[in-house]
């Protein structure tokens, strides 16, 4: 599989504090990679290092097979990025802002600005950007990242400030870009549902460390709601769960605790069957998914 982005031991340290530590990311061509983590986990710091805005303390970034030392037009002409909250010249209109960037880039098609604005429903706006809402600025930021048809799109929390319809539109656009144009996308978020509906692969980052990389199926499997049982005797309880309650989808945590992923069970019946079988039940509760909202 062709890799568009690879980070090797990527680290950023501020004094004694690690913002990002030993990050090894791999983003495959044509796929959508979701970088999932709480606020302050290190997502934006990682993206800033990838885009050359921040010098890593250690490690390296490899983009399109080239080690990134300083940003070059050859490599960065193939990237579009929306980093943190989008920023513009507030005395200018949306079109004027994009035209300045297009002119500086020098490689864009003449109608690329109009096309990008149309895609995010800002083509009819004549107001100055200073009068835009947060959602409008966010959409303009996405337009700015996409207008030169990059091969690799980096979106840092792209749905921030958007209403539900706007979020849906951005999700559809991201999936369409990936499916139809083969654009590789790195999207960061602290909301699992955002990543769940778009990404092919997820990297979970916490305290600057990449905890694990999973496919979406693996993540969904790990992140399901579950029934937590704390029992007096797991070894006797498991045969009861399997035979009398037909529970097959479970995970033993230790000698007292078990997670049951079949949530269509009657809790009273589970409790009754276990107690009747001589098993002490000290906890029987439904637990919520960890990454529903990680902020």
């Amino acid at each position, binding site marked *: 599989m062709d890799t568009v982005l690879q980070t090797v031991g990527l680290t950023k340290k501020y004094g004694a504090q690690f913002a990002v530590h030993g990050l090894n990311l791999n983003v495959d061509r044509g796929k959508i990679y979701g970088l999932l983590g709480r606020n302050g986990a290190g997502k934006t710091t990682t993206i800033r290092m990838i885009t050359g*805005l921040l010098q890593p303390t250690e490690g390296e970034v490899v983009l399109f097979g080239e080690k990134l030392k300083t940003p070059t037009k050859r490599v960065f002409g193939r990237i579009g990025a929306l980093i943190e909250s989008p920023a513009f010249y507030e005395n200018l209109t949306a079109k*004027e802002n994009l*035209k*300045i*960037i297009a002119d*500086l880039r*020098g490689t864009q098609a003449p109608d690329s600005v109009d096309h990008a604005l149309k895609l995010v429903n800002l083509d009819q706006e004549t107001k100055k950007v200073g009068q835009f809402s947060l959602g409008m600025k966010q959409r303009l930021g996405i337009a700015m990242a996409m207008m030169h048809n990059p091969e690799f799109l980096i979106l840092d929390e792209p749905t921030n400030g958007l209403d539900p319809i706007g979020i849906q539109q951005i999700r559809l656009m991201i999936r369409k870009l990936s499916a139809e144009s083969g654009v590789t996308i790195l999207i960061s978020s602290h909301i699992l549902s955002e990543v769940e509906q778009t990404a092919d692969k997820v990297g979970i980052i916490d305290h600057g460390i990449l905890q694990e990389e999973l496919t979406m199926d693996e993540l969904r499997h790990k992140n399901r709601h579950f029934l937590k049982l704390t029992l007096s005797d797991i070894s006797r309880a498991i045969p009861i769960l399997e035979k009398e309650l037909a529970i097959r989808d479970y995970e033993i945590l230790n000698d007292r605790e078990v997670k049951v992923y079949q949530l269509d069970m009657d809790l009273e019946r589970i409790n009754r069957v276990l107690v009747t079988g001589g098993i002490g039940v000290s906890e029987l509760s439904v637990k919520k998914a960890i990454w529903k909202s990680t902020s």
Partner: protein
Amino acid sequence: MVRMILAEFKKLKGSSMLWIGIGSCFILPVMALGINLSNPAGFTWAAYVQQNLWPQIILLWPCIFGTFGSYIFCRERIENTYKNLLVIPVGRIRLTVAKMLVMFASIMAMAVFTYLLNLSGALLGVAVTSAEFIEGLRVYALAGLLMFVCTLPIMLVSILARKGFLLSICVSILYALGSFLASWVSPLASLLPIDVAWRIMDLHQFK
């Protein structure tokens, strides 16, 4: 580089700083008109424009050009648009050079525009020949060039301080006032760029 310079000019469109810069060009010519209208003193063209030039150099232009230049340099950081440029990528040195050239062109344009506004002196009966007009233009253009050099320390303070725009305004005003006061004290005056510029202008006044 041409694209970068044009982009810098486009960024100024509709900005309040642009209007402040243009508006400042009117101050001395209008004041001179107002002061002398009721009692026209029979100026020659050279004397009229020279009398308007001195307060521009020593007080007004350092404040206006310093603030204007700080705006050009600081706004990327204040408005957080630097990241948009660096991701293109636009080199920091090339960006700085482009901004310096735009600042220079803007200062020269304002200096020349201020000079042209002196033509309002015609209302006071100030007459000008084409030779005198060109000579006056040379003097004001030289003043603009010297003022560009004199405001570079303000730019440096703005860039290095990494603070907001307000600091640049305060530095510009203190720089101008300090130069004005120092102009009365000969040894001190030879140290400050604005006073040195004025003395150079003194040597290059109307021939």
